């Protein structure tokens, strides 16, 4: 039996801020350029990938984030949303990658998802992120790829003052410490 070791596995609370690692859930990177790719993804997932920059689409189970003109990320909204992670990946891979419509890559363990919520979410981000959140904070579903304390991150604005932050696993411990240090000083 192999043991599962997520890098953070913790939740921290500060005045008006709560930060937690969301237990790893499936994350897939999708890349494709043509309309057939979009249609196929829409058919398999029952969600059309957004084509407007820095937006997302989704349902109760899944979210699709726009990452670039030919790149998206799909992630499950909670770990119970998908009973069998492999089925979704295999289905997409077989119907997209294998038939040369685009690429499907599993990045579940590549990225760590950290949920940050509370009234001071954007104040926290302003301590190390150069992105302009003025409009973003009021746009539910907005996404961005930016830097936090010089580390590449993806942010998905789930709801009012409630967002998911994705960071590469190798950076996650460092960024987690940094975010907590920052939150403790707000």
């Amino acid at each position, binding site marked *: 039996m192999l043991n599962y070791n997520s890098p953070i596995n913790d939740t921290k609370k500060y005045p008006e801020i709560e930060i937690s690692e969301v237990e790893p859930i499936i994350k897939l990177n999708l890349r494709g350029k043509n309309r057939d790719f979009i249609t196929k993804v829409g058919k398999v997932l029952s969600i059309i990938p957004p084509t407007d920059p820095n937006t997302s689409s989704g349902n109760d189970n899944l979210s699709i984030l726009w990452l670039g003109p030919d790149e998206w990320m799909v992630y499950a909204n909670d770990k119970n949303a998908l009973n069998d992670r492999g089925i979704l990946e295999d289905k997409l891979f077989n119907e997209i990658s294998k038939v040369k419509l685009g690429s499907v*890559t599993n990045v579940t363990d*590549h990225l760590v998802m950290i949920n940050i919520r509370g009234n001071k979410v954007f104040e926290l981000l302003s301590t190390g992120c150069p992105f302009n959140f003025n409009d973003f904070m009021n746009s539910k579903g907005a996404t961005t790829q930016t830097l936090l304390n010089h580390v590449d991150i993806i942010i998905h604005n789930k709801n009012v003052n409630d967002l998911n932050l994705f960071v590469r696993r190798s950076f996650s411990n460092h960024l987690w410490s940094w975010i907590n240090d920052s939150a403790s000083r707000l």
Partner: protein
Amino acid sequence: MNKNLRTTNSNFIDQTSRISFKFDGKTLYGFKGDTLASALLANDIHLVGRSFKYHRPRGIMTCGSEEPNAIVQLGNDLSMTEPNTRATEIELYEGLEATSQNCWPSVNFDIGAINNFLSPFLPAAFYYKTFMWPASFWKKYEYFIRKSAGLGKSPTKPDKDIYDHRYLHCDVLIVGGGISGIIAAKIAAQNNLNTVLLDDKNNLGGTTIFQDNECFKINNSYSNEWLKKEIESLNSFKNLTIKKRTTLAAYHSYNYLLARENLTDHLSLDEKKNKIRQRLWKIRAKKVIIASGAMERPLIFNNNDRPGIILSTSIKKYIDYYGVKCGQKISLFTNNDTAYETAISLNKSGVSVNSVIDIRDKSNSAIVKEAEKLGIKIYWKHTVVNTSGYKRINSIELMKLSDDGTAVVENKTKEECDCLGISGGWTPRVHLFTQSGGKLKFIDKDNIFLPDKSVSEQISIGSCNGDFELDDVIKNSIKSIKNFLNINSSDYENLKINCSKETDKKNIWLLPSNKPLGKTKPFLDFQNDSTAKDVKLALREGFKSIEHVKRYTTTGMGTDQGKLSNMHALGIIAETAEVKMSELGTTTFRPPYTPLTFGAIVGRNVGEFFDITRRTPIHEWHVEQKAEFENVGQWKRAWYYPKSKETMYEAVQRESKAARDSAGILDASTLGKIDIQGSDASEFLNRVYTNAWSKLEIGKCRYGLMLNEDGMVYDDGVTTRLGENHYIMTTTTGGAANVLSKLEDYLQTEWPELDVYLTSVTDNYATVSICGPNSKKILSKVIPDLDLSDKEFPHMSFKNALINNIKCRVMRISFTGEHSYEINIQSNYGKSLWEKCIEAGNEFNITPYGTEAMHLLRAEKGFIIAGQDTDGTMTPVDLQMDWIISKKKYDFIGKRSLYRSDTIREDRKQLVGLLTDDPKEVLEEGAQIVAEAKKKPVEMLGHVTSSYFSPNLNKSIALAVVVNGKKLKGQKMFVPMENKTINVTITDTVFLDKENKRLNA
């Protein structure tokens, strides 16, 4: 406090809150709201420090950031003390301790003051001229010069304070909370713009907020009363952020600005504990409105630097704002109307004004008439020719000016005083405008530089844009703001403004004296002790550019960067050299506007957060095993695993031997991994690597070498074909991000026709590498179902497998030359898999080895490390890897460059092996290689790139690059070191198992 020096009519000082502080060890008292400067003046202390060069007594001269003299050492804690802080900007707090600078043993008796008597022998550039010969003596001079150089003392221990950074984005940023800034903020906020207003003081309002004079009214209210109500009205705007105690430090291109906010500098020692001291704001503004105001100029005359000589508006601020009298018998010396406002304020507060000495012939403005009405004596067309009083001014001498203003006439008049207010007109603060790249224009009428062409979305308003009269400030500001923000109307359309208008102007940069210039000391730069005669000397010695004169005389240098001195220096240079001020230009205004602490610049990027660190999924295991770590890029990689008291050498020897004798295990998770999919994936690899990929079978691996466009080796790694259109590429640890960017760049810009998609999966997989003769046995215990026979799973092939139902990819590839496997598994199972492999390998003495042993093992086999054995100047041919360059392929990155005349030269530096004559002698990496030991000059043929003592070969081995190395095999060479010369022989690069038998052992 001296009660006689305090008035009770200030609204800005809380005279019910007494604060104790120490200056030069003496306990003094001030009030809440005081600055250190106002509190010192209230204690009748003018002498605050000594000047830099002549150690002349110096006092408080201004009330703001331009202060050149009153700079003090704050605090005495070795980690918190701060030098060169301006007493005029330090808000008084309980427990404040400040000391004078640049004096010993005390500010009152300073040994260095002997320099003042030696000043005739210390002209401009004295040090440059004197200490350049004989050259060999410099080391001796340097000791003494360095000791006396610099102002203040730096802290010697780490800063205990906490600093912070924040990003801020806004529609409109307004810099300066004076009357024009307040108007701008209100108009912007009323029009729903996300507005930020910054001011460096703790109260908004600039100089108008204490302009309590009948001559200056807005809508029939005194200007200060009207402004106060406007400031109060700003509180109702939710879209307006006001940041007080915040100084705009730098204005960069595209409206990117840095501002420092002082959060606790004004709090008592107890109150500031565990709080963020300063915050650096990184601001992106769509539009910027600069309302930074203007600085009052001094006047340049003999002995104009004595304690007690203060800018006239500062005297007004001290009396009207802080309720502090700068003296009991004050004289004023001016060339404009400003000093008359001061005279009236002083008179109103009961301070005796001796006289106003005005270099103009006359003035009929309302404010002058009011002063005359109050009976204040005015000396028209007069100048001050000298001042007396060593540690505090006690008298002045004045004389009448000639009609042309170049000389003095008639008899001297002596006037006793304890304070002299001076006003030489106003200099707009254009520093921020020029920092942003804006160009200035010179206005002859007012002798000022003003903003001309800007390169950003910005405007300057108010006195920093040359409007000095109240009505001009308000009306022109409103007009500019409306135009800039595309607004049709504002609340300020029909303001009724009454103000005094200046009717006469006269400017003399260097005022004449009854003595020759050489016998006087008319100071220009008060901090650096640079005088008008120093500037003239520089011109006589051939310096013409203002930038050269600045550096030769030090005018405009120092902590104040010549805020007060620059304009006069320019004026005197222009007059002497007979050129126009506009042609002369200015010195460069560089950020920061006022000095920033290192803490503010660094923010929280200290200690643990100094640099980003990356960890592998197996990191914790390495920590538990007390591994030593090596920084590889940002990764923390296990370097070696010392047992008990093992040295690094001993540990590496043990690990290397174990890997060859039985089994070793390496955490290779840091290698870059790029998932490649698409119908053109094979063609893509053909183009990025030097060798051919089309025929690589599914399930097979191949080593590839990637070149730069110049044909030089850029990166290398093994790529595996996972499916028809699916590959996984590995890159070097340090090169991963750059390789992905480069390849993505090629796909987007050079080869958009290729159907290829790249995705980084570096962090998705933990990679466990098991090598050694027993590796197969260990792997068969970990994955019993996998057929590991050479037939089914040969070297350079790959298999999908399941370990406890978890998918993994197993590659049979080797970086050590041993029979090896690399298992790639989802990162979150990495640590558990590693432990499982260790457990399975226990019976074979499986030994974890770090990066150092890995380097040694690959060097035994002559495998290169891109970046260690290559340095951006090595082609594959130089590395003796000709075999990897496909001759059949149409093209690949760098191909053309491989056939340039320089790259096909036979005598390029080439990779070779080196063996030392003494097998125990280990060469130093980087050591030079020569053919003749005693030849001079030394002809260096190459250098050692990798060097180790091989426990498996029981001798020292090395890789090196040597000119024409390929043809020198067997040749003797020399490696000259500091104390000895080492004899070496050039060999093949492969030291161990040339036949690759161990790969299949």
